[in-house]
């Protein structure tokens, strides 16, 4: 008996479900709140949401965002209003994915996808510029050749965990608050979120926020 006693743990574990996957062939779904590489979102009419205000750069604890604003050309405006983000760069060698930039952004221009599997062979490649960060015309992140995207990485690319948001309302206590829109569409707000009713109606036209499938600008 003493011999088998030694295998007790082994046999016990043998009959439990396996948690190891053979990465990277098999990718595990990521948690809803995973922080990955950023995207710069667009409005539904294709205008850039970023207004070049540098609030994200100012709040970033890793000092890895570089933004410069410029006067919006009046004949072909790039974003609504007077100012647009003329240069936008994030250095992924430094980013700690804390999402403070996302919280600081007044226009929900910068949000994070769940993509974290990307690698570089030199410093310059690690600095994403507007060209890489901006979402495509469909509102979805660009899938760059050196990035390993899985299909749910785009889900929940909205500005999230507005912990102190909405005037610090008590019904947010301990609750993850998603803004009511994804980088590329509208999602259902969390329970207790202000404006729930209003957005829920809009949501009927857009499909439900929890599936990844709804398109950018649908219904307009």
């Amino acid at each position, binding site marked *: 008996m003493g011999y088998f006693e030694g295998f007790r743990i082994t046999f016990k574990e043998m009959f439990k479900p396996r948690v190891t996957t053979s990465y990277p062939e098999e990718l595990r779904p990521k948690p809803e709140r995973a922080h990955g590489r950023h995207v710069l979102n667009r409005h539904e009419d294709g205008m850039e949401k970023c207004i*070049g*205000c*540098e609030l994200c750069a*100012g709040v970033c604890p890793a000092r890895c965002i570089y933004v410069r604003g410029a*006067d919006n050309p009046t004949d072909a405006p790039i974003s609504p209003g*007077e*100012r647009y983000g003329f240069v936008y760069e994030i250095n992924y060698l430094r980013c700690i994915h804390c999402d403070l930039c996302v919280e600081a952004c*007044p226009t929900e221009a910068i949000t994070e996808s769940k993509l974290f599997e990307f690698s570089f062979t030199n410093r310059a490649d690690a600095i994403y510029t507007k060209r890489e960060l901006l979402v495509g015309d469909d509102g979805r992140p660009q899938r760059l050749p050196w990035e390993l995207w899985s299909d749910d990485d785009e889900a929940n690319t909205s500005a999230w965990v507005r912990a102190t948001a909405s005037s610090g309302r008590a019904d947010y206590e301990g609750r993850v608050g998603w803004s009511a829109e994804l980088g590329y569409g509208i999602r259902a707000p969390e329970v207790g979120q202000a404006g729930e009713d209003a957005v829920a109606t809009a949501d009927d036209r857009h499909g439900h926020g929890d599936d990844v499938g709804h398109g950018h600008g649908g219904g307009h």
Partner: protein
Amino acid sequence: MTDIAENGTEAVRGVAVTLNGRVIDAQPGELVINAAERAGVYIPRFCHHPRMQPVGMCRMCIVEIDTGRGPALLPSCMIPVAEGMVVETESPVTRKAQDGVLEFLLVNHPLDCPVCDKGGECPLQDQTVAFGPGESRFVEEKRHHEKPIAISDVVQLDRERCILCDRCTRFAKTVAGDPLISFVNRGNETEVNTFPDHPFASYFSGNTVQICPVGALTATPYRFKARPWDLDQVESTCTSCSVGCRVAVESSSNQLVRYLGVDVDAVNWGWLCDKGRFDFEAVNSENRLARPLARQGDDLVEVSWSDALTKAASALGGAKERHGSSSIAVVGGARLTNEEAYAWSKLARSVLGTDSVDAQMGDGLPSDVVLGLPRATIDETCAAGTVVLLGPDLKEELPILYLRLRDAVVNHGLNVIEISASQTSMTRYAAVSLRYRPGEAAVLVQELFEHAGDVDVQADLGRARALLEANNVVCVLGRPSVAERADSVVQAALRLRSRVPGMRFLSALRRANIHGALDMGLSPGMLPGRVSLEEGREVFTEAWGQLPGSVGLDTAGVLRAAAEGRIQALILVGADPLADFPDRDLARRGVAGAGFVLAVDCFATDSVRQADVVLPAVSYAEKAGTTTNIEGRVSRLHQKVTAPGTTRPDWMIACDLAERLGGDLGFETAEAIWDEIERLAPAHSGLTAQRLASSEGLEGIVAAGPSSILETTMDVTATATLPVDGYSLRLVSTRKLYDNGTLVQQSPSLAPLAPGEVVRANPADLDRLGVASNDRVRVASSRGAVVAPVEADAAVARGTVLLAFNQSGSGAADLIDVSLPVTEVRVETVGIGDREVSG
């Protein structure tokens, strides 16, 4: 409360005021808001500004004040303290009032903070966070206006953001004296605006951007360049002219983006002129010289520093060996810091062996006059009994000195006697304004004291004489016009001095650090510390090894000698004689006639393009050191950004050249140079680097120094120069703030502001000559001719014609012959296209 004490002076006794339950000691007449601030209690405010009269516009400073009749809500910026007053700045009633004021101010305020240039340093943001209600109950539509409208070339106005504090309009009217913006409409529709077809074209418009408590006024050159949290700041001194305003130099990502005025009592009171405020663009310019150049045939090609220095040194050494030291000359140096000027002075005297060094471009005054006359500071001038203006138009050349004098006249009753060849911006503030015929300033001064002159000016002369009886007369002395020689102005000044005992002088030479350059001996016959070559010979021979035997040539002399082939090597240190010397023909012949030309500069100016070797120098805000203003005030300059390419500081270039010439200036750092200046230069002894860096040095320290150089009390009889004939007019050539100089032209925001070339003459003269206003005219002197449009202008005295110096076009320099006392010109209409024909 004030008492008149026995001896007649006011004895100041504090006023006891209870502030939030604590008794504080306020000064009689002090406003509650200021007394509270001194006692450490900040009362929020928007319209109150320490350098302007209170108006009580914004109501933000409302607090509970009990003057004995029970507590009431009163604006603390309008109420002077009184004995026994009780002030509550934190009571619930005060808090509620502040909440209310802010909620009202925000009713029409747009939510622009993320795109607003003020966001992050905005008093409205800050005070809303600190004193505001936290939430607005206003859900209605806000007032809308067109987003920013350009009210001048450099200032934009966003009326939606304006909180109607009256700071900008008050500044324009009461401080700048340019009432070009004003409130229009009433009630909810009130807005700040310009008058139709009159832009806010004030030389001081940038100050309104700095004092606007919200982002309503923003500066075009700074628009969206950076946000406050990514700015780096250092305090320095402006060197765009010689007033020496203190500035905060701000950069973002190693690029200059903004200057802000720093409030120092002695100089600029926080104000800056627009040229000084916005010419940082020139430092950032793409056109800066970044690498050394050397001549290959017709072209200047990039070479290494070592090649350039070797080439320059061998040419300089060769000239010295074959033709003697007097064949070498150094022109320029007003761009340099004091330390750099000293290094060049030492290089010229001890290594090159020449005394032909001159930082002035023939458009100033003799250096013994500038350095030798008894001095007055700006404060002393403003507090003088009477001020005599004998110099350029101060608003155009020394704008902040103009603001200070204007303030002294308007608010403190200063009496000003203006002696000028035509009306200037000070004329309307002068108690007496006397006109002299160009070249005859000394004649006018003689008439003043000898009761001579025409009957119609007798009354004016009499009033001026009476004003000169005052105690404490100060003369602001500069070069009124480059179209007349300096002699007559010097004579006039010396005559004034001999007739008005105790008269002191404030220099009005305009160029950057010209006073520092002269102090450091960049002038023939002068050594550092305001001593002449002979006075300082012993001390400096010992320290420097050797000194030139005799006094050298000034810039005009150098150019003349060069034109005659007697200058083998001409060194231009930040000098552009082709643009700045009054007589372009002589400048051209001089630069062409010099055997070898070495230029040390930041930009490829016309003169630099003629050089054989060009060494690129670092520019403002790229080097540390000290600078000296019109008063002789030494203040510190700080480095903020790194210089482009391989540019070097001028002192280092001087050391490099000395080394290649087999000498050694003995400097490793700019600080070491200052230590030597402090040790050797008599006027600067005791002005240690420590003192300058201490709090005492924040507004600069005046180098009092000796003034024993000028012993002449010239009393020759002034003679009038006779006009050539009845049709000739005398040329007056003065500077405008915005001209064709590199600082302005390399600043894209300022370059378009240069007015261009316009001839101005009195309408009566134009009638007499049969020329109509707006005609194109040909102005011809014995030297050459200029074709430009003419404007009738009653401000120009009869018998004279005004043509600004160094504007686009061929310019006054083509007309002036520096060997003549005055420039006589004839003015004739030309048809379109017959420039050549008329004649």
